[in-house]
């Protein structure tokens, strides 16, 4: 467990340092503009965000495993909270992040056009990024519909049952 967290932390540090170096170079080197460094920076940034998300998942999984020793009500509350966090991430944060990546890509193409370079094969790069973004989004939406939501609904049903929503008044 500690080893896993250390590996993730090392990946995070490497990714962050790489991204920072790319930003510094983009600012200092006139030849290394945002337009021609966009894909490198986008991939590095996406990698950093994925590792961060992975770290959150690992820590949450550890917390959930330790939580089974608590009473059932508290246990369910924690699991439901985690799943709701997943739903929120996939429905809100993921589209914002992916939309941001696409927007930066468009801006990088605009920089080239305004710089007088005109239309070039850099658009193919942006189309590939667009396809990648769609595939990632489709994968996570599938996961939301097939895994996350059914599990959340099932656990909420058990919590309602535990709360006694199904009890008739004369049972109490």
């Amino acid at each position: 467990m500690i080893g896993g967290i250390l590996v993730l932390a090392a990946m995070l540090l490497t990714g962050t340092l790489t991204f920072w170096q790319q930003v510094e170079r983009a600012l200092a080197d006139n030849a290394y503009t945002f337009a021609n460094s966009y894909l490198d920076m986008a991939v590095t940034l996406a990698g950093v965000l994925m590792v961060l998300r992975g770290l959150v998942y690992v820590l949450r999984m550890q917390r959930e495993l330790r939580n089974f020793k608590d009473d059932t009500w508290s246990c369910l509350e924690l699991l439901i909270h985690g799943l709701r966090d997943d739903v929120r991430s996939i429905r809100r944060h993921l589209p914002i992040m992916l939309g941001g990546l696409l927007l930066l890509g468009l801006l990088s193409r605009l920089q080239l056009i305004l710089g007088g370079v005109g239309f070039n094969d850099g658009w193919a790069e942006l189309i590939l990024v667009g396809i990648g973004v769609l595939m990632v989004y489709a994968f996570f939406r599938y996961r939301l519909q097939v895994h996350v939501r059914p599990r959340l609904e099932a656990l909420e049903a058990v919590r309602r049952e535990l709360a006694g929503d199904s009890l008739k008044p004369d049972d109490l």
Partner: protein
Amino acid sequence: MTRKEQNDQFTAWIRDHAGILHKVARAYSFQPAEQEDLLQEIYLAVWHSIPGYKAGSKVSSYLYRIALNRAISWVRRESAYRRKLDQFQSAPGASAPDSRLEFLYAEIRQLTKTERALILMQLDGFSYEEIGLILGLSTSNVGARLTRIRQKLATNLKEKTP
């Protein structure tokens, strides 16, 4: 706690209380393959809960709590499960060695997840207070629910036996 101490504690608990974990797995899953899956998940939860165990409290109560929480929160994908269930039910030799025990488990599996937890613990001799502490319910709530569960089981058994 060192890894070796955790290993030794885990081995001792499984050796002494495997019956509890098997009972819960059997009550919360329908097929032997699923029971194995759930049992593995319960073992994993028990392993991770060892450092949190307070010496002096009942081990059986602690393990019941972990096993029930794992079983109650275990959700299988319905469509894939249903297909496998239909396939398995038609296979020969699918019945358990003790038909009376299997009959009882089949009835328990018809109950809701919370009801299964309540009746399993009562059958194992836990008091209403202990059951309430494990599930996070009041003692009176536990008593009322168990009365209803017993009535439900009695009605079902009466309908099914000649």
